[in-house]
């Protein structure tokens, strides 16, 4: 049986907040693993979190083939807001296009920011999606 990975209190509270929001929101833990996205985000990406489960953030993002806003160029991982917030521990914002699980191209703006607990312990990131 795999060992239980208990979530940090900040992630537990962040999830509770996200589950109450109508703003599409996702949460990534300190290892870079997507651990939750809310119902509003499910509507954007066309896939329920219960079906996805926890998985590496980059794998999840890549599955939606993010591209530049004109749709011409793939958006590399290092240019995605969630990856920037995770790697550089700073807020990041970008507009891009994804192809949702239902096959529809959607233009999004994503704002991601790092989460720090007391004594500056990095515990993960939150990202919110805006449809523009």
């Amino acid at each position, binding site marked *: 049986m795999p060992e*239980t990975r*208990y*979530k940090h*209190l*900040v992630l537990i509270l962040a*999830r509770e907040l996200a589950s109450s929001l109508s703003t599409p929101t996702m949460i990534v833990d300190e290892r870079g693993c997507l651990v939750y996205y809310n119902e509003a985000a499910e509507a954007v990406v066309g896939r329920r979190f219960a079906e996805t489960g926890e998985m590496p953030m980059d794998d999840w993002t890549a599955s939606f083939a993010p591209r530049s806003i004109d749709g011409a160029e793939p958006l590399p991982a290092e240019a995605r807001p969630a990856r920037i917030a995770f790697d550089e521990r700073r807020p990041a914002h970008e507009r891009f296009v994804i192809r949702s699980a239902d096959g529809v191209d959607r233009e999004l703006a994503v704002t991601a920011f790092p989460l720090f607990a*007391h*004594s500056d312990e990095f515990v993960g990131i939150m990202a919110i999606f805006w449809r523009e």
Partner: protein
Amino acid sequence: MRLTIWGCRGSLPTPGPRTVEYGGNTSCIEVALESGGLLVLDAGTGIRELGLHLVERGVRQVHLLLTHLHLDHLEGLRFFAPLWDERVTLDIWGPPSPLLSLRERISRSFSPPLFPVDLGEVDAHVRFHDVPRAVWTIGGASLTARLVVHPGPTVGYRIETEGGSVAYLPDHEPALAGAIAEKSRDWISGAAIAADADLLLHDSQFFEDEYEARIGWGHSSVADAVAFTRAVGARRLVLFHHEPSHSDSSLERLEKRAQELAGELAPTLAREGMAIELP
């Protein structure tokens, strides 16, 4: 491992005839380790009486583990006799804060107008430690501290020895992060501390109807204490952090309510002077 409860009242000391049976002193537990080491959980007013016993026993080394710095968990420290004994080394552990060190925060209660003597003038050799993020060891016991749901930086503690495991969550409102029974264990505040513990001392300050008017104050209803115990698989629940307005008879009704909810788990009330031996 042997635990002795020196204080289990929440929020405010409540001496008097209505609280004789379960006691009016605020949180303090002595943990005597198999190795001979001594841990003290919290410095509520119960620590005053404990301190007198420790002086009599000639104890020279004490590790004090603070869950947080709300007054009811700290106010006894100034009257803890070993603090005023130059032969004593006192290691104080507590939750980190982004702004002030543990010493700076505790110093506030050793300064005018709250107290006439500065922390720097105490006789004991006092050392301050932020609790580590990883498991650490004192006197052969493995210790774990994790932030839990309660206003301000607050941790719960888990103590493990060959004799068993104890989880101490005196001030904890896990239901504030969503209904406990609907969550998997890894998403429950405090579960990392209490999972499968042999003994859990948990906040159960309110009856369910009292809790409805106090959501967000950082404490649990008796129903949530039972739900938490079940969710994390702890084997024994001791109801802790008694509401100051609850008399002995009120507490006994609370215990009955817990037993109705918990069935074979058979929770019991913490009381001053109670000793629990593990295993």
